[in-house]
């Protein structure tokens, strides 16, 4: 399970780093990617599409919460929870 989480986080991190318009070194695992302005609306919708395609999860209205998407850590946890359900 731990290796699954490591793999998920690696993929999420790689995606976020290539998707933002900033130096990737500035984005830590707990950086607040939306609050700090690293990603905008288009980035958010692209991220959701990526997560759905990459991990085969589906995102509904109830999932659109800050705690699910605010950072690389939060997104990885969210994907893991979705995969376990």
């Amino acid at each position: 399970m731990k290796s699954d989480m490591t793999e998920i986080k690696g993929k999420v991190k790689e995606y976020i780093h290539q998707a933002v318009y900033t130096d990737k070194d500035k984005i830590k695992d707990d950086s607040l990617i939306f609050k700090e302005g690293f990603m905008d609306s288009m980035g958010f919708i692209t991220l959701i599409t990526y997560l759905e395609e990459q991990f085969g999860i589906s995102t509904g209205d109830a999932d659109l919460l800050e705690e699910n998407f605010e950072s690389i850590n939060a997104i990885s946890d969210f994907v893991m929870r979705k995969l376990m359900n």
Partner: protein
Amino acid sequence: MSSKKPFSKDIILLEDVESAVNEIVTKMQVDVLHTMKRNGGVIGISGGIDSSVCFALAAKAFGPEKVLGIMLPEKDSSPDSEVLARNLAEIYGVEAIKEEITDALSGFRCYERRDEAVSKVFPEYDSGTHKMKIGIKQSGLYSNLPPIFTLTIVEPDGTEKEKILPRNEYLQIVAASNFKQRTRMSMLYYHAEKLHYAVIGTPNKHEQEQGFFVKFGDGGADVMPIGNLYKTQVYQVAEYLGVPKEIIDRTPTTDTYTAEQTQEEFFYQLPFDLMDRYWYAFENGYPASEVARVMGETKERVEALYRNLERKRKTTEYLRMSPVRNYYGL
């Protein structure tokens, strides 16, 4: 030294509407007649509050005989719009003509391109029997998450189905729909050039600053008389200029998609009176705690709203930029 007024719910109101109208009218005369050296104004009229106020201001600035109102309906437009626009033109004694743009839009394959994207999200979508609209998820307003766009289709029996709109389909629907505003802009410039008039644009302050306009579409004009007015102020000016009550009372809509949709639902996520006050507070640097106290909100929610407004302003900066041309000889 000027000190800032304490924040209040009425802070947004124009104290002297007559004087504000005179200031706008005088500047329109200077800009259009003297600086641009055009003989009058052409304006697209939709029967909405913004274009009606701009129309009345233009009639006052240039005289009714130097203004041409143009109705620019297409097959998705509300039929009410034309009735209201014709009535408006009669009241101000201005000539109004109709230019139907459906054929031009079909030539651009506007409807076909839009429906292709809708069908990718809802394979059962049939443009002949279903209606469609896009909107924003309301939950994003007080959150640090950016807004998410949704697509809704309305079945013949009125049942609505909604899905989160994927990026590519969202972009295609918006790009296709923007043919409407850009076609209207082309037609307005045809008539403006033919008459040696200026094009009077109708966006208000919110539309300009929050990016609720189409670049080189309704954002393409020579002057924008209400570009610095909050919506509350636009309504004050409308009352003063005698805009018909049916127009003042009409809920602002996008009149862009086949299903009925208010501007609040599509873009603003807040009623205009609230949006005006929060935007004013945000752009004039009122502390969230002071605004929260007056508005009966929490400081945290007002701070989140401020961040949302700041994000809207930043992410739409591209729309307001003129073409960048200083690449050589700096």
